[in-house]
């Protein structure tokens, strides 16, 4: 499959690039397919919100990008490095220098008994900076997220919003090129969520950090340049500037937006009709012809949305 020149350029500057990414969990016999062919590129400095129902594979995608798991098939490249055959040690180095991550569960991101500043220092500890520089940077980060006043309080005793902001600060501690945040505003009230979003945006604007944030929060989607919706292990839709687009997969598959499923409920047969700037879908049982044999005719287009569970 040849790529358009435009797309090639995008890949060259992409912080994240994945192609036909498949992730299957579990032992043979009890397998869960979390991702079934994801193609996604995120350009340097871009802010992307990952949307999608629970269980769609968003977290899995993040883990793949962070080098915490290896894909079953397909290609992942992060910051210009192929993650498929990266060693554990190199992956760790990447997480230290280039990829910051905020895990889905707020408690997971912090050492509860360590102070706020201690948590930032903990993330910095493997780097070669001088202790003084580390401290200065940690203090600066806390200042920036407005936690300077509680810098010495154990993280476990901070409020949910503070913890979440701290988690972001920790992920940013070593100035990563890419920040992966898995539902950083879940469990937060609106104000706290807004603070976190501001923090992410600021980091992007000030440092040029590429952002890939999983969220259910429409506010995040609005704040970010692009939204990518994952459904059923695939990239279903993309939104830019408030507008929602379908994404045609490599195998030509598309995922209809949920509101259109009323018109074409799962299992309906549709007829794809070429129109000047695209393809129109018509329900086969509604356009008068009940002749199903005709549908199976050799010259007819293959039915779209053919994935059935």
């Amino acid at each position, binding site marked *: 499959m040849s790529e358009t020149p435009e797309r090639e350029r995008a890949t060259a500057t992409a912080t994240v690039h994945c192609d036909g990414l498949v992730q299957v969990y579990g032992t043979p016999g009890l397998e869960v397919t979390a991702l079934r062919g994801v193609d996604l590129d995120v350009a340097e400095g871009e802010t992307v919100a990952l949307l999608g129902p629970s269980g769609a594979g968003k977290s899995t995608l993040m883990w793949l990008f962070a080098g915490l798991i290896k894909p079953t098939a397909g290609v992942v490249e992060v910051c210009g490095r192929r993650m498929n055959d990266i060693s554990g040690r190199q992956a760790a180095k990447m997480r230290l*220098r280039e990829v910051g991550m905020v895990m889905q569960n707020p408690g*997971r991101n912090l050492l509860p008994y360590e102070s706020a500043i201690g948590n930032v220092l903990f993330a910095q500890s*493997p780097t070669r900076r001088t202790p003084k520089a580390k401290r200065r940077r940690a203090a600066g980060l806390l200042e920036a997220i407005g936690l300077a006043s509680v810098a010495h309080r154990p993280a476990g005793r901070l409020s949910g919003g503070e913890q979440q902001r701290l988690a972001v600060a920790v992920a940013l501690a070593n100035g990563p090129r890419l920040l992966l945040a898995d539902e950083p505003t879940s469990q937060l009230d609106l104000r706290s969520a807004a603070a976190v979003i501001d923090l992410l945006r600021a980091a992007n604007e000030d440092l040029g950090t590429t952002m890939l944030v999983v969220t259910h929060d429409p506010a995040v989607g609005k704040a970010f340049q692009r939204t990518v919706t994952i459904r059923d292990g695939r990239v279903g839709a993309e939104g830019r500037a408030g507008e929602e687009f379908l994404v045609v997969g490599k195998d030509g598959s598309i995922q209809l937006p949920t509101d259109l499923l009323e018109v074409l409920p799962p299992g309906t047969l549709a007829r794809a009709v070429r129109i000047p700037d695209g393809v129109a879908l018509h329900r086969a049982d509604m356009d008068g012809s009940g002749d199903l044999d005709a549908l199976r005719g050799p010259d007819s287009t293959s039915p779209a949305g053919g994935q059935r569970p």
Partner: protein
Amino acid sequence: MTQLAAVIRGLLHRGGSTLVIFLVSIAAVAAAAAGPIYYEASRTSVLRDLTANKPLISWGFEASVTGPVAGVESILTSGVIGQLDLEFGTRNVSRLFKPPIMSLEGSGNYPLYNANFPVVWRTDECAHLRFSGTCPQAANQILVGQSAARVAGWHTGQVLRNTGWPALKITGIYQTPDLNSPYWAPRAASYFPAEEQVIGSGGPGGGGASFDAVFTARSTLGNAPARQQGAAVMDVYLNSAGIRQSDIGALGPKMTDFTTSQNLALQGVIVSSQVYTTTAQIEGNWRTIAVPVLLVTLEVLTLSWLLLFMAVSDAVEARGPEVALAKLRGHGRWRTLVFGLSEPVILLLAALPLGMVIGWLAAGALGRLDLGPGTPTAVPGLAWAAAGVATAGGLAAVILAAQRTLRRGVVQEFRRSGRRGADRGWVMDAILLTGSAAGLLELGVTGRIGSAHSGVLSLLVPGLLGMAVAVVASRLLPLACRAAYEWTGKRGGLAAFLAIRHIARRAGGTRTTIVLATSFALTSFAVAAWAVSQANYRLVAQTRSGAPVVLTVTPPAGRSLPAIVDRLDPRGTKAAVVDNFVSLTGSSAGDVTLGVDPSRFAHVAFWPGSFRPSDLNALARRLEPTPPDPLVLTGNAMRMRVDVRKLSLPGELLTANVTTGATPVNLGSLPAHGAVTLRGPLVGCPCVLESLSLGESGKDIQRGLINTAVNVNLTIESIELHVDGRWRPVPARFLHSAATWREGLHDNPPDKITAGPRGLSWQVFTVPVSQSPTLASANRPAALPALIPSTLLRGRTGPVAGVNFEGNSLALEPIGVTAVPGAPGNGVIVDRQYAELASNEDFTFVNQQVWTTAAAEHRIVAGLKAAGVVVGSVSTEAGVQAALARQGPGLASTLFLADAAAAALLAVGAAILNLYLSARRRRYEYAALEASGIKRSTLRRALLIELAVVLGFGTIVGIAAGLGAAALVLRAIPEFVSYPSAPPLVYTPPAVPLAVLLGVAISALVVASIIASTSLISGVKSDQLREAPA
């Protein structure tokens, strides 16, 4: 620095598991270190016990040179010092040996009494004597003994001449010192001969008396007349305080080399020493401690490691999310390892010095309980090594426990479903079961199980059995709970249902059960072993000692000890006189003859309930059948009228044997036929007429009648005593009842004794002339009833031969008993008065003792002293028991008990904390249950039931396993260095200590469970629901 601070914050954050790991690590180190420390201390204690109060020969040497007194000293000193230096090295000599006690000995003669006496200078003699007057300073000044002064009428200031010495001036009179003191004991026999005799028996002009030594200044002997022969004697004790344990091995052989040195022999120095017997004894005793201490330490150490492994597994597991976080933050492998292990490793390292100190303190405390007073507790290198091994084992446990967590990926860690630890698999179980089966089999095959073969290896049985039972039981508990699941679901109430469900869910069995069962198996076994050994020590101490307190005494000359005791204890319930005679040759009936006053003895002596026959009073009564009273002779002469019918050897001498110990009363010769009145003087009476006998007159021998037989037929018509100037007849029954007499020579044909109106007729048939026909007074049973250990009788019933107080044969009528108080396996108890009669009232070789009850000891001792009785040694049952417990096996069993108790305490603590932590992790679940409407009290009850079932099960299974092990091998656990032949030892553990153990264990568990469940459930809050289930 900040990293260390972070680690410490982490440790504090996980306070519970930190505490468990820390305590267990300390315990492991302490257990490891305490073993060698205690071992070292107990060896010192044994060394001191076995060398204290040892006679010089066993713990030192005596060297002597004989020759002209003036010159012997320098030969001896230079010879001995030179050889000692050669043998031991100059630097060691002053450490190993006490300063020598030198003696220069010559002899003098006091012509008036023809009495010989030693003339002695001994190092520091005046410091060891109590005397009136002044210490001899110049040559030819002397101190004389009190007894000699009394006999010879010496006084201070008197000058003795013609003694073989220049004129000797008496500057003072000394009292006889304690002859058993270390200073005097080696030479007491030569310096104080008078103490061995009846004082004053030799009067002026008498022959060959010996006076106690005169002590003089060194110069007297240094300038002795050239003809004075004598000796220089050097008494050198070994210096127990300076002798190290490491000296003992070489000491015996070196002393033997020294004793038999060619050099010394050539210089005429004679050395005597038997130190090798003592060193061999010490080494033998040490050996009995070494193996048990090793095994006990290993067992407890293994248990600590097991606990540590479990605690560390939990702790590292609990840190799983943090380790994952470190990985997430891009920490490298090494950093993650350090981060993951730093906490337990720091704890282990911190525990090393602390455990060492605690081990040292514990060993010290234990030592104060059961080692010789003042035994120092040093820390030998071995203790450091053992502590190091314990820590290394701990580190290995940490690494083993941590590797699973450290290897786990980040996603796996965060995405794990539930925190169910992987099933531990059957490998460990298989190894443990095979090991214990093999161990038991080995012991079974070698016949150690259930036998009284003492084998220290049996100490492994409780550990092996405990482990095996524990792993099986830990599998059974969840199975049983699964079975009970249905039932509790229907009928047991919600709390029981929740509790049982929790236990049933643990597929791999509960580690808590393993730990508790193993440690309680060890503990209950140790308690049983300790209690049994203490009971046996008590039993043996009681029978060895005989009574709570045994005083060895010397009554003042001419006074009767029984009379003094009678006055001190008129009711006869608190004190008893015992004549103790130790035969050097022994007899078929035993080596020790104890003469007792039966009813007093029955009140004072130990007679444990297990002894047979059980009624000591009844036994005591059997010791004194009432024979006719003795015929007591008083006055200054006796006479007899004898009518001789027939005497085949005319001129035979008739003698009356009386119990003064003096010469028999010679009554004169008998005619061949006809009546005669014979008469003889009585000296030193009142005394008892023991027998009348016919002896050959010198003429018979001259006439060459040696091979002739004697036939006698005579009648004794009267016996009269000359009292206060008048002749008085003896009571009539002595002549008118044949029962008051019996044949003295048990020959064949027997004599014929009849009583008639004319008097007592005595017919003797064909007795060889070399023997003396004897008519004995039947003042005591012919064969004395005697209590004899059944083991010694070996089923014999008829009369047996014992020894009387003179060491001669004594016919005994045996009464078999379990053991004889005072001489359990080799003693014979007879009536004291009969035994004295049978020994001609000869006390020369008898140790006179007073046995008292513990309560009466002080009063009796004070009374005896007031009456002038010298109380020599005091031995108590408690003292004997303590000495037994201080021997190797006793020390090992105490260590085992202490170690096992500590292990059990630790296991209980660890188990409770473990359950607490696991329940804490389930707080989310409890919060959910509460939110679903289950009452808090139900939750608390559920947790309490769960804790109680798990803890109680482990404890009870463990105790049962320990008691099972006790039943199997208790007999084989060494209890004594040398086993007593009697009484039989008891191996049933006393119930009280076991009940106490069970009570303490169960109440501790109940209290801890209640506290844990209450505090835990009250900490459950509904907002915990928001937290992810960790």
